[in-house]
């Protein structure tokens, strides 16, 4: 390898070709370009004209130089030059690439793959051998690890991909040790570990093993691609709380959590924000119960990866509610307390009736106990402690004697309000407090409470009281007990004590309470095996299960960690569906420790040797194409865009992009064109269809004006308020698109000045046909534009507005469409413009109605036929007159005539 300082050549002998350049120079000079051919009729006159035909003809010097440059570029390119910055060490050891490809690498995988490919390419260029190893267990048995050619490493890399389970670094460390002892890997090696940035039990083992082979460079994904894990959600009364974890980093980060339904629709979205230095964050998602029941998975938006997905299985579907069957059956099922509760719960959940034994066999999420069914069975207490929700209703029995399963202590006897022998009026409910789960529900003013059980004042602390009567006594109390809840309604579940169960409020209160339930525990028996129905792939998408998946015995399911044989996904046993998620609950993510043995944490983008044979050869190729063009141009076969002389040709090749534009002259031309004739203008939108229509519309209007009135406008012009001066135009037609861009400050100032100076702008949203679909919402494009312009209040054109009589007598203002309102300034008298409105805003698509083609034929159909087109033209003429004459026709002088004509 020949080298000059940092510049070296991999194939220095090719440089000998440079010696041939002088010979080439002579050769090229001696070869004249092919003559131009020209047919020339007066050839007779040309005969025997003097010519130095005999002297050898030279190619122009610049062409020879150009061709020599091509030759030199090719020769230097073939010598394979390499520019090696002084800081780069020349690596000559074989390389070992270790890639983490567990779930945590999913987001960063493409970057890791790119880096690995670059490493392999570099090794390939230097002829070093490469070994590639991945940490996650694969579905198939891994190939034996050994140093091999770059091509086989590329094949390995292309077949490797992130897996939806955890990386097993210990196993890889063992494989590497096996390979070393089997002489398949021999040090020293240059080891690069493309890690996922997470610590685990095997990290230290692997680092130690790698360190024995050579220096270890560890590369971590940047913060934006660091892995995230969603924890199991927690139910709240409003919805649910989602916890997201990351390896703690200094930078704050914000991600979106999306709740997806079974059909893949997003049901809710909430931003989760990590503070700097924090590794965990929670976000509350407010969702009504019936929507929450439909959630199938939670995802971190825009973060593909199995860890960023939390499948919910059916645990979160509609919590099962058990209604404890009452002991005393009074034979009137439709009047029983249970009937009212069941009716109220059915819309949002699945109530089951049964006695306690039957219900607890398959524990529901919620137990409802009415007064008739009261029991202080220990199993109920256990049920609550384990996370169940117990909803109780008071009644005569509870009033007589309390028990343990109560959120507050009760006074004996209860309270009777109203009635024949009582002075007290029946009580109404007070508004719900802000802390109450019922907050936001309107208290039903018509529901009156006749009787209730009373809490002992001391025990009814404000956090336990969810609803009160107007006099402050608690109506609903609740208490957290163990992992569960006890909620007590201080009235009966039927209408005996109060009107509450008859009101619409009752089911909504129950719905809020049910929101606390976590869904039914998995009720399948412990026998049998869960088999996978849909697997989560590494990208976090549900897909078919891999062939490696095996059924999981029911008794070990809760302890199962994901692996190739137990991939994450939805598992089914009988009718029950359960989710096995990649990241177990409460799994903390820790960053890779910095003190791994022998590891150097390095960025990847250091200085690298630059090879530029390819750019050189490409440049030579481009120049050769240019050369052909020049040769053809010299021979007169093609007309070159630049001048005929050689120097100009060469200069133009290099200077073409920097052509100066005669701005000032152009601006002058614009001003002259706009000012020397009366013209209408339109604002181009960039959409050629609309722009052509605007132009044709104004052309048609101009023609009609010329035909019917004394006004003879010239050809319309396009003006761009961002760059052009507007003051020359009496009237500007402005079609407004929905996605119209915001105006710059300069343009807004220009438009405001134009309006103040007496100009008239017609804003046409051209959508009267679909305007109804906006349902009263303003046109988004119009909002964008008008936002920055100073527009006074608007009103519809009144029946005595000047626009209705400035030329024709009109009462409607149709364009292609008709019927939608047309707006002008409400009180133009206040303006400085002599009482004329500066804007006309409508949606009638007037341009289409006015538009004519070159032959003067109408271009677009009009809703109401020719009559409407005529009216549209009349309106256009009125507007033009209005623009030019202002309030002239408002003058009272004409009133008698107009009245006379209106009289018939």
């Amino acid at each position, binding site marked *: 390898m020949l080298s000059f300082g940092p510049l070296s050549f991999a194939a220095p002998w090719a440089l000998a070709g440079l010696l041939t350049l002088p010979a080439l120079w002579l050769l090229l000079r001696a070869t004249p370009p092919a003559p131009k051919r*020209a047919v020339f*009729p007066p050839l007779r006159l040309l005969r025997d004209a003097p010519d130095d035909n005999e002297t050898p003809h030279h190619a122009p010097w610049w062409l020879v130089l150009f061709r020599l440059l091509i030759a030199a570029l090719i020769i230097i390119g073939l010598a394979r030059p390499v520019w090696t910055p002084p800081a780069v060490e020349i690596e000559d050891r074989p390389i070992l690439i270790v890639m983490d490809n567990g779930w945590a690498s999913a987001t960063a995988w493409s970057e890791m793959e790119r880096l690995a490919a670059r490493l392999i390419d570099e090794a390939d260029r230097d002829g070093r051998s490469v070994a590639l190893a991945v940490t996650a267990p694969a579905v198939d048995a891994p190939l034996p690890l050994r140093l091999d050619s770059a091509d086989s490493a590329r094949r390995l890399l292309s077949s490797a991909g992130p897996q939806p389970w955890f990386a097993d670094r210990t196993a890889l460390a063992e494989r590497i040790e096996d390979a070393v002892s089997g002489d398949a890997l021999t040090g020293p090696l240059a080891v690069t570990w493309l890690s996922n940035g997470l610590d685990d039990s095997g990290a230290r083992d692997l680092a130690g093993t790698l360190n024995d082979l050579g220096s270890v460079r560890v590369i971590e994904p940047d913060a934006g691609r660091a892995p995230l894990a969603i924890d199991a959600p927690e139910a709240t009364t409003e919805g649910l709380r989602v916890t997201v974890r990351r390896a703690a980093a200094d930078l704050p980060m914000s991600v979106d959590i999306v709740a997806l339904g079974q059909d893949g629709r997003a049901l809710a979205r909430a931003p989760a924000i990590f503070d700097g230095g924090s590794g965990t964050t929670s976000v509350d998602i407010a969702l009504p119960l019936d929507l929450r029941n439909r959630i199938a998975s939670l995802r971190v938006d825009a973060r593909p990866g199995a860890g960023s997905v939390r499948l919910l299985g059916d645990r979160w579907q509609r919590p099962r509610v058990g209604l404890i069957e009452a002991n005393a059956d009074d034979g009137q099922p439709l009047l029983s307390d249970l009937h009212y509760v069941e009716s109220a719960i059915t819309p949002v959940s699945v109530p089951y009736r049964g006695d306690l034994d039957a219900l607890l066999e398959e524990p529901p999420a919620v137990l409802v106990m009415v007064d008739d069914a009261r029991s202080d069975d220990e199993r109920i207490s256990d049920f609550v402690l384990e996370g169940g929700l117990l909803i109780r209703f008071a009644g005569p029995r509870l009033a007589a004697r309390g028990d343990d399963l109560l959120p507050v202590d009760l006074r004996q006897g209860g309270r009777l309000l109203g009635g024949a022998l009582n002075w007290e009026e029946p009580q109404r409910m007070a508004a719900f407090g802000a802390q109450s789960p019922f907050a936001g529900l309107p208290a039903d003013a018509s529901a009156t409470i006749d009787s209730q059980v009373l809490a002992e004042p001391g025990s009814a602390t404000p956090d336990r009281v969810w609803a009160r009567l107007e006099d402050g006594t608690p109506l609903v109390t609740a208490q957290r007990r163990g992992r569960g809840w006890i909620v007590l309604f201080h009235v009966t579940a039927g209408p005996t004590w109060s009107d509450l169960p008859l009101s619409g409020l009752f089911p909504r209160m129950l719905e809020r309470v049910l929101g606390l339930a976590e869904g039914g525990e998995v009720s399948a028996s412990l026998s049998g095996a869960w088999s996978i129905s849909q697997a989560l792939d590494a990208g976090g998408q549900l897909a078919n299960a891999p062939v490696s998946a095996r059924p999981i015995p029911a008794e070990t399911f809760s302890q199962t960690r994901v692996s190739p044989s137990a991939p994450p996904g939805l598992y089914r046993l009988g009718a029950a569906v359960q989710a096995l998620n990649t990241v177990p609950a409460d799994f903390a993510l820790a960053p890779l420790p910095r003190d791994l043995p022998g590891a150097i944490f390095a960025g990847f983008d250091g200085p690298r040797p630059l090879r530029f044979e390819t750019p050189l050869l490409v440049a030579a190729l481009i120049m050769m194409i240019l050369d052909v063009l020049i040769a053809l141009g010299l021979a007169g076969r093609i007309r070159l865009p630049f001048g005929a002389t050689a120097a100009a040709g060469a200069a133009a090749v290099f200077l073409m992009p920097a052509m100066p534009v005669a701005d000032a002259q152009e601006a002058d031309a614009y001003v002259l064109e706009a000012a020397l004739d009366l013209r209408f203008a339109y604002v181009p939108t960039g959409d050629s269809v609309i722009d052509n229509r605007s132009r044709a519309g104004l052309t048609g209007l101009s023609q009609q004006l010329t035909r019917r009135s004394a006004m003879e406008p010239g050809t319309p012009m396009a003006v761009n308020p961002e760059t052009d001066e507007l003051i020359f135009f009496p009237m500007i037609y402005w079609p407004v698109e929905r996605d119209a861009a915001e105006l710059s400050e300069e343009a807004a100032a220009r438009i405001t000045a134009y309006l103040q100076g007496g100009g008239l702008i017609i804003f046409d949203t051209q959508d009267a046909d679909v305007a109804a679909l906006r349902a009263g919402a303003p046109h988004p494009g119009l909002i964008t534009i008008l936002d920055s312009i100073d527009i006074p209040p608007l009103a519809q054109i009144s029946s005595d507005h000047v626009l209705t009589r400035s030329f024709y007598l009109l009462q409607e203002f149709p364009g292609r469409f008709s019927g939608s309102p047309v707006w002008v300034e409400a009180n133009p008298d206040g303006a400085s413009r002599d009482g004329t409105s500066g804007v006309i805003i409508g949606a009638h698509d007037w341009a289409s109605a006015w538009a004519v083609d070159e032959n003067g034929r109408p271009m677009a159909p009009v809703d109401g036929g020719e009559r409407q087109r005529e009216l549209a033209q009349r309106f256009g003429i009125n507007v033009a007159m209005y623009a030019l004459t202002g309030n002239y026709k408002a003058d009272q002088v004409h009133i008698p005539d107009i009245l006379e004509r209106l009289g018939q």
Partner: protein
Amino acid sequence: MARGVDRHKEAQVVKLRHEGEEAAASLPALLAEAERIAATVAQGVHGRRRSGVGETFWQYRHHRPEDGRAAIDWRQSARSDQLFVRQNEWEAANTIWLWRDGSASMRFASSKHVPQKADRAAVCQIAVAALLTQGGERVSVLGESAVPRTGALGLERTSRRLALGPGAMGSVEAPHISRYGRVVLASDFLDPIETWHARMSRFTAQECQGVLLRIVDPAEEDFPYSGRTRFEPAEAGDSLLFGRAEEARKTYRTRWREHGEALAELARSRGWALVTHRTDRPATSAVLALYRALAREA
């Protein structure tokens, strides 16, 4: 296939005729002149409503002393006391014969931006024909139609022949033309002056007068070529290779000017007018000059 060719030719006729009429239409002054001529000119071989050379009686007028004795019409004078002179009406042949050179050199255009010389010649002549027919004159294409025609149909036929006709040199060398005819010859006149001398003498023998319309391509006059250039003739023949065409420019331009002067001299000596027209100029200018020449002649 034949139909396709026809259609193409048809389009060519229409295009040239359109251009020609356009060139004529843009000459309001000429039109006025055409009207004026039309008002004074009858069709065919007609009297010019003034006394002159002719065979038809025009008027008797009083004898004036300068008339001489032989001029007196004794028969008329005998009927009264005064002497009368008999005058005949001046009769003139008012057919205009048009000819457009169709040789290969006329099929030359040095760039896309200028028309072929033959086309431009046809345009000019069609324009003149349009003006003449408006004025009631009769036009005919030399060598291709024996019968002079007038009116819209005549113009139509004439235009077609001017646009598509062969324009054979034989029609000029042996013209079938009546005496005192007026002729418009459009060509590039690149043949040697002696050749044209011989051709023109036939017209002179018939006492024809006319105009030479010399069509020049800008490249022929300016000789913009430079560098290594191979010049090829329009007809079959040897080509000429120049190593540095710019060196021949001066000589060529001198020869070209001499040729032009000789041509002008030839025209003047025969009493003809020479109108030189470059194809990069608008046809109107040529039409104007042509018409002036014809009007002056009349």
